[in-house]
């Protein structure tokens, strides 16, 4: 029973990681950069939703939509102001810029909302629980897992079926060729950031529904772990992000339950290191050959 309980918790946490990992994996696949600030967009999304619920009296769905809108704009702004000027720069420079961006968001949040942790209000997401035999499953868990499945299906359809989705795949394969084919690369990359950031807002709300403590650093650890998940699954691959996220969530919960609570994070990172050493391209990643 404890085993099943842990498994469900792991799936729920893993679903959150998966949704965040989608943002990383899409941006990495298309812009070929590690958007280190992605985790902090989650935090911003959660804070905006928090304000919507707590101060502005918005209904939960409206609060989530506002959070998504704010994060979308934020994502586009970050890309346009900080990352676009560095499109041709070395990856080291881009990564340092992204780290700077992550710090900027955290410190802005610190100024706006203060260092004191806020307790995320209850919504329909975490208001009830279901009794399945001896198993008590909270609504947040169910909503999270369902949201993950819906997002995954919708995103796959979008990428594979729509014209814009095809343009994204095209840019991901070969940016130069895509440009020659008349695809607006800058707009495609902006769109990728927009989608990733909107998903981050959802992830932020889901995260805080399960773990209702909100502070400026809320997003950083889940962000890093979700990146781990994206690498685990094979960066650039959407099903990979899903599988990697869910697996990582399960590993983390089981590690905490059966090995050591304090070492939960260490276990997650050890998994990342082992995966990168055994299969550097992740579970579903394609090998890359350096052109000489």
């Amino acid at each position, binding site marked *: 029973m404890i085993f099943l309980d842990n498994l469900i918790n792991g799936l729920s946490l893993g679903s959150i990681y998966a949704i965040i990992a989608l943002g990383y994996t899409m941006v990495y696949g298309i812009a070929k950069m590690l958007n280190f600030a992605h985790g902090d967009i989650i935090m911003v999304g959660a804070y905006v939703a928090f304000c919507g619920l707590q101060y502005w009296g918005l209904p939960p769905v409206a609060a989530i939509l506002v959070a998504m809108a704010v994060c979308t704009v934020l994502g586009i702004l970050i890309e346009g102001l900080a990352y676009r000027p560095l499109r041709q*720069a070395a990856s080291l420079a881009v990564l340092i810029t992204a780290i700077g961006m992550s710090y900027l968001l955290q410190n802005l949040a610190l100024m706006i909302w203060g260092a004191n942790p806020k307790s995320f209000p209850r919504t329909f997401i975490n208001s009830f629980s279901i009794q399945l035999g001896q198993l008590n499953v909270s609504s947040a868990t169910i909503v999270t897992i369902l949201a993950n499945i819906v997002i995954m299906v919708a995103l796959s359809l979008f990428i594979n079926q729509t014209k814009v989705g095809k343009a994204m795949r095209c840019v991901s394969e070969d940016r130069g060729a895509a440009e020659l084919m008349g695809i607006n690369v800058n707009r495609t990359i902006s769109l990728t950031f927009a989608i990733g950031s909107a998903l981050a807002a959802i992830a932020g709300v889901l995260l805080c529904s399960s773990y209702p403590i909100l502070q400026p650093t809320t997003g950083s650890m889940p962000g890093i772990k979700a990146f781990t998940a994206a*690498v685990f699954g094979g960066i650039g691959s959407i099903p990979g992000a899903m599988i990697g996220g869910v697996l990582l969530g399960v590993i983390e919960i089981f590690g905490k339950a059966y090995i050591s609570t304090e070492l939960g994070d260490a276990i997650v990172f050890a998994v990342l*290191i082992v995966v990168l050493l055994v299969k550097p391209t992740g579970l579903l990643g394609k090998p890359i050959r350096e052109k000489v």
Partner: protein
Amino acid sequence: MTKAKRKRLIYNLITFALVIAAFIILQSMIANKMISRSLKGQLVPICAWIVMAVSLNLVIGFSGELSLGHAGFMSVGAYTGAIISGWLLQVYEVQDTTLRLVLAMVAGGLIAGIAGVLIGIPVLRLRGDYLAIVTLAFGEIIRSLVNVLYVGVADGKLHFSFLNKNMPAGVSMLVDGAKGAVKIKPVATFTAGFVLILITLVVVLNLVNSRAGRAIQATRDNRIAAESMGVPVTKYKMMAFVTAAVLAGMAGALYGLNSSTVIPTQFTFNQSINVLVFVVLGGLGNVLGSVVSATLLTVLPEVLRAFADYRMLVYAIVLILVMVFTNNPTIRAFADRLFAPVKAIFRRSKKKTAGGDAQ
């Protein structure tokens, strides 16, 4: 002597002269009680941060790999230093504080170096962003591990335990899990910090201007070309990484032995980023720059109290601006044009002083 060599020699001399002059001035200020207490308390940490910045510059600026776990090595050094110093005092009753400090720093460097080798073997097989994220992961793993480490002295012996406090009766704790290294007798001195900076400068500057250092820089500029010239890339990346780890470990021991406790949360990812900021602002590959920026950015928040609240915010903005300005071709060209008149004046005056040397 060639022009390039002469330029390098002058640069190195300025670096050393500046550090030595600063030390002499500060020492005489201390002797004459002209220095505020808060600044005096900052002297050893400043030395440690300078060493951290210069050593990280070796990895990022010269070997071209982004390491995000440098604070992890500092933490290894700090803990090792605290344990060794406490052990020497309690078991062997070594009263000589200088001896304890030196042995602790050597041990800190050694253990951090071993950690560097162990981490470097897997990490340096990876490239670019992956390497960065794995160094971050290792930094976090080190932090998690020291969080559940217990070390104590009982019956004249060191006792280690992991995950739970499993100690014999009458134990005197040196490292107490999440409480960190406790009851440290502070033995670090400004002079020791100054000597460590000199050692660091000698090691890094001499290494960089030698066969091994050129190999390290070649792997940064073009990995495949370096390999094609017969340079074993991983070996030299490892050399830079482990050298930096040893120096960070020594800095950690110095830093740890400057206070009475060391806690795991002192060496988080944020601390690694702090050092990264020093390196980026000082200039990648610019050792003197690292020294100056580490000093200024450690002192400034103490001096400008009001600024302290916005320190990280300002850091973040500056980090982004520096990166965008130095790496965007359009902006760079614009800046070059903006400063062209200034540069022209500078060049003309240089030519005059150089006499017939100008072409």
